[in-house]
């Protein structure tokens, strides 16, 4: 099999992106402005970093809908720390530790009590938002205060280097690292194995429980990174920071070919999925469409993506298997006979 299924799936997403890009470039006047490209990349980076984390969980056969909560909690903590003057590396570190801890908690809860991924992370999402509420600045009578960060060093994270926001660079770096881990290292191999067939990988000695917990931990850490950069850009944190990002990230991964069943797709697919979803939203504004159509379009895109993927997987699966059976059988039989007669080669 020269061209692998994974490559074809990425080609489709890439094709969609190029087509959309062309359509918007020619029809929407302000689309090609540098500023707009910067904007697309910044928003795509925010979704993309979460997608990196979500793709680990998805490829490992799970799902994490609590990203919104983790972003809210780690974002608010980062905002509090930054506003009392902590240097940005310390803030980033603390936030990532908190995000990872939330992810670890998700993984521990799911593996320890054999709970269903989806409802557990949905619930813990609320719990983490609750922690965020605990952490947010409140005045003496208990009402929340919104707080502007003055800490110059920290705000630098939200700035951009001649046009490209730092978050974009972080996103690309994280994607390359994730791609490397998933495709080159043993850990990545075991993640795919766990996602594709967890029983047999367990029988072959892969510690599925520890692996699952680690994928959720990585996802939590990625959410924290995204949160810190967003808080730096917005110079404040608020309660519904990151609300709905859990689902958006999963949707972007699915569109990018990281399937819900597990074992499919990779970090580059998630990268392309994030770009595609952001491109869709950004393009929609250009036509003065009422933003409510953006929600309609998002819903429709996700439905079409999972339906076509179910179809694509079924179609390619069947076609490839039929092909394999047909030529394997004849070819093998001929060769076997030849070998038997002429002794082994």
């Amino acid at each position, binding site marked *: *099999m020269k061209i*692998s*299924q994974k490559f074809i799936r990425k080609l489709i997403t890439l094709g969609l992106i190029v087509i959309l890009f062309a359509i918007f470039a020619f029809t929407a006047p302000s689309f090609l402005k540098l500023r707009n490209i910067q904007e697309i990349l910044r928003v795509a980076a925010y979704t993309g970093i979460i997608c990196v984390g979500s793709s680990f969980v998805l490829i490992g056969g799970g799902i994490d809908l609590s990203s919104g909560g983790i972003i809210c909690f780690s974002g608010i903590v980062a905002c509090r720390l930054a506003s009392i003057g902590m240097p940005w590396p310390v803030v980033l570190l603390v936030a990532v530790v908190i995000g990872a801890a939330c992810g670890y908690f998700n993984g521990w809860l799911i593996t320890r009590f054999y709970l269903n991924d989806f409802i557990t992370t949905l619930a813990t999402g609320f719990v983490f938002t609750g922690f965020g509420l605990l952490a947010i600045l409140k005045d003496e009578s208990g009402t929340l205060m919104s707080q502007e960060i003055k800490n110059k060093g920290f705000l630098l994270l939200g700035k951009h280097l001649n046009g490209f926001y730092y978050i974009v660079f972080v996103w690309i770096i994280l994607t390359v690292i994730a791609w490397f881990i998933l495709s*080159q*290292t*043993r850990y990545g*191999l*075991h993640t*795919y*194995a766990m*996602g*594709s*067939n967890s*029983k*047999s*990988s367990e*029988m*072959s*000695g*892969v510690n599925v429980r520890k692996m699952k917990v680690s994928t959720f931990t990585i996802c939590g850490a990625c959410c924290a990174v995204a949160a810190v950069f967003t808080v730096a850009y917005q110079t404040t944190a608020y309660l519904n920071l990151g609300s709905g990002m859990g689902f958006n990230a999963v949707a972007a991964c699915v569109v990018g070919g990281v399937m819900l069943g597990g*074992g*499919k797709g990779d970090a580059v697919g998630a990268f392309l999925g994030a770009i595609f979803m952001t491109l869709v939203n950004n393009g929609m504004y250009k036509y003065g469409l009422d933003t409510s159509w953006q929600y309609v379009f998002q819903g429709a895109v996700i439905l079409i993506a999972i339906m076509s993927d179910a179809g694509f997987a079924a179609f390619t*699966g069947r076609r*490839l*298997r039929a*092909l*394999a*059976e047909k030529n*394997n*059988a*004849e*070819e*093998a*039989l001929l*060769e*076997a006979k030849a*070998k*038997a007669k002429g002794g*082994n*080669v």
Partner: protein
Amino acid sequence: MENELILRTENICKSFNGIQVLKNVNLEIKKGEIHALMGENGAGKSTIIKIITGVYTKDDGEIYIDGQHVQINNRHDAAEAGISVIYQELSLVPELTVTENIFLGHEIMKRGLPDRKEMRRQVQELIDRYGFILQPDTLVATMGMAQRQMTEILKALSTEAKLLIMDEPTTSLSASETEQLFVTMEGLRERGTSILYISHRLEEIYRVTDRLTIMRNGEIVGVVDSKTVEADTVTSMMIGHELEKTGVRVPKINKDHYIEVKDLQLGNLLHGINFKAYGGEILGIGGLVGSGRTELVSCIYGTIKKYKGSITLDGKPISRSVAKNIKAGFGMVPEDRRTAGFFPQLSILRNIAISSYDRLSKGGIVNGKAEIEHTEKAIADYDVRPHMRKLPVQNLSGGNQQKVILARWLSRDVDVLILDEPTVGVDVGVKAELYVYMRKMADKGSIIIMVSSDLAELTEVSDRVLVLHNGTIFQEFRDHKATQQGVLLASSGVTAKEGEVL
């Protein structure tokens, strides 16, 4: 003599809750030998395999590998000792390539990263050494069954397995794939890997194995040379003395109430099936696992709808919808109770009444009293223990669960009852009861079709036996002429000379 044996077991014994399953089993397999193991279901062959591979622990007895004594308590010890198993349903990861699957769990690392080049080289070397037709980089998901099997074998060999145990590997292989597997096995034998080959198919035993050990009732009854042994001797050793017939029952056949199947064809699984099943008789259907028996009865029942040919009840073609057939009096006890039989969380009452709501409800409203009466009568009639209709069925024993499913149909006195392996995993006492109920139903004039691989059941209980082999009806045994030996031979496509009963 000692080091010539790759595996020697000494007086292995094992018993499950009081029943002695293995009695002093001494299994000997030479190096570089393909050794077959045959025996009826329940003869203990799967138990001895599980002990050797560390799934069960033996009660007593010793195991010697390459002459040294080994203690095998779990799967890991077995792998250490060089024993690896290939189960029927393969344990490969579809999304990984051949190389990745083979080295899953024990990758070769170089500077902290999996050394892909080295692993691929080793896999290629294995492929060339054993003459497999595989590429190291193909995804398992895109491979056919035969190639997957070869990958599974390679995976075993990659851990320097000295003894390869293959559990009925050819059940889901096509003819050409099976041939391909045999060539591979011969290649392995030449390189000194010994194989323990478990199968029901006699022709396979002749084709590829050197020696054959036969087990019955937990004991080894003989070790013969596969090439020279007569089919009859093998079957008679498997069955032991023929149980003398308990009086020939002349079933009250009702000639004009029958189901007729005319040249039924289903893909490449079934072709040219023609037979009639008459009211009042129990028609047994024999044949090996995977010879299409379940598919055949599923076509009759309506779960499989896409088949060519016609199936008629008393001349009228039957519908292809399960719901209509049930109304017309059909009923089915499925092969796998757990996945398609009972509703685990629901109570005995719900499980039994689920099929008879056409009688137990008016205008969609369930008649509670009638439902309870119906179920209590069914529980009493078929002695489902414990007699608590509210108890979830998942809390019952295997035998009682089967009785619940049987009661589900017999309680509405079905006209056509299909049973698929009705007595698997059921203790002897309950087995006898099931036969009585089936006989009673048949005497009432219903058509009973029973698929079974239990030879005694087929020959004793059913009045007439059809044996399927390679998708067609190979042989029909009328008027109680069916002998266990005859059925067994027929299942392997060998016809015992008519009338000669060993």
